């Protein structure tokens, strides 16, 4: 098991977002998490990487409890987690090369900086955009930005990749390309993936297992086929 979340609670003032959420991600697995907007998916993923502190509950990543980790330990653990943000989150004052070099310069204990160029090119080749190396993010289309963000998430060769709505805001063709790219990467690097999405097509192609999040708890869990065939009206609503 690479991620283990147990009884996770998180609220903002009076609003309770997560009410005892549980999740286990196995090695090499593609787990899709679906939920309505505001159901706490992004909050959960932020608790997972230490961007938010949960009110209570246990969050273990690669066997380590992140709630008791010091900043330096957490930063080291983060080298094993790739994160694809919803809006790509490329550093817009840096070129594509600098965006990709950025994580490498933070983890010099893991990589030799002499190989930076090779690693940057390898990551760009993986997403099919080696020619963009000296471009600024603003010069790229939305789909290209998402690919570069994926290359940045991959450059440290993480064991786990977290995808926060990877196809949101993209046209259907580009969205399909991103989904196929995610599958390729998973096969090539044998990563474990947690994918947060609204996109049923994405879930159909990529999910080994799915969790439906409703009112801050796991409402249903199973394979895409099992859940899409369920009779429960609340589950059906996810697949319409």
């Amino acid at each position, binding site marked *: 098991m690479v991620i283990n979340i147990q009884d996770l609670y998180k609220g903002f003032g009076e609003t309770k977002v997560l009410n005892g959420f549980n999740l286990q991600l196995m090695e090499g697995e593609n787990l899709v998490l679906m939920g309505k907007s505001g159901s706490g998916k992004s909050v959960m993923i*932020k608790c997972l*990487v*230490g*961007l938010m502190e949960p009110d209570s509950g246990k969050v273990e990543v690669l066997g380590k409890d992140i709630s008791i980790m010091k*900043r330096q330990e957490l*930063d*080291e653990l*983060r*080298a094993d*987690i790739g*994160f694809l*943000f*919803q*809006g790509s*989150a*490329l*550093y*817009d*004052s840096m070129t594509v090369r600098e965006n990709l070099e*950025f*994580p490498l310069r*933070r*983890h010099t204990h893991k990589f030799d900086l002499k190989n930076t160029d090779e690693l940057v090119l390898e990551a760009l080749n993986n997403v099919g955009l080696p020619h963009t190396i000296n471009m600024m993010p603003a010069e790229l289309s939305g789909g290209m930005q998402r690919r570069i963000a994926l290359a*940045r998430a991959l450059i*440290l060769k993480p064991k786990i990749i977290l995808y926060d709505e990877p196809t949101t805001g993209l046209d259907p063709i580009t969205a399909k390309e991103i989904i196929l790219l995610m599958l390729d990467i998973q096969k090539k690097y044998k990563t474990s993936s947690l994918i947060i999405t609204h996109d049923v097509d994405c879930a159909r192609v990529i999910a080994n297992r799915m969790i439906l999040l409703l009112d801050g708890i796991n409402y249903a869990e199973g394979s895409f086929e099992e859940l899409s065939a369920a009779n429960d009206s609340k589950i059906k609503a996810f697949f319409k």
Partner: protein
Amino acid sequence: MDGTYSFRKNLSSFFIEIGELTGFAGRFFQELFSRPFEFREFLRQCYNMGNKSLLLVGVTGFILGLVFTLQSRPTLMEFGAVSWMPSMISISIVREIGPVMIALILAGRIGSGIGAELGSMRVTEQIDAMEVSGTNPFKFLVVTRILATTLMVPILVILGDFIALSGSALVENLKGNVSYTLYFNQVFNTLEFSDLFPATIKTFFFGFAIGLVGCFKGYNSKKGTAGVGKASNSAVVFTSMLLFIIDFIAVFITDIFYP
């Protein structure tokens, strides 16, 4: 009744903000002395702030000296004291007008830029991305920027002062046939340590205030593009007010040591 309530609410949020700003400054000093030092980013910020503000500071300083001399000339001529022009202009510019005017311009140029940049990075999750990649974004973004403004604002002010005096010398040369050598001789004969030292020291505080408020507003910007605009705008307003308060304190202290 509503007016009183609104005033109390605004006053209370003002003091809350001052408290938060103090906490932010405390965190800056805490992170300043801990490793790793983001020297590369610090140099990049110094270059961006210094190099890109040169033209603005140069033009503003030159016009400041030019206009100040043109406006003062008729009055000094009336009293037959036009020969005092270089002394009067140099003391006014070096001690007060130069540092305050240039710091205000830099608050607009650099402070709002930092507020908007960090605000937009917050909104587009770039700060979160930085944190996830194992970087301390406060150290990388905030500490480097505050340090860069603290160092660059004094340099820009000194440069601006010199350009303002050059503008003034040009007017004196054209209108009063005063040579540049004579003008600057008189300037340097007039200026003393007590004019230069306190004026330079206070510009470090100006620079620190510009960086601190810009970073504070941008880093804590609320979600949405409106939040970015608000961060940028309030960074300038808050910094301008803070600059006058710092200036008042600096003048007050200087008056004690150099009456």
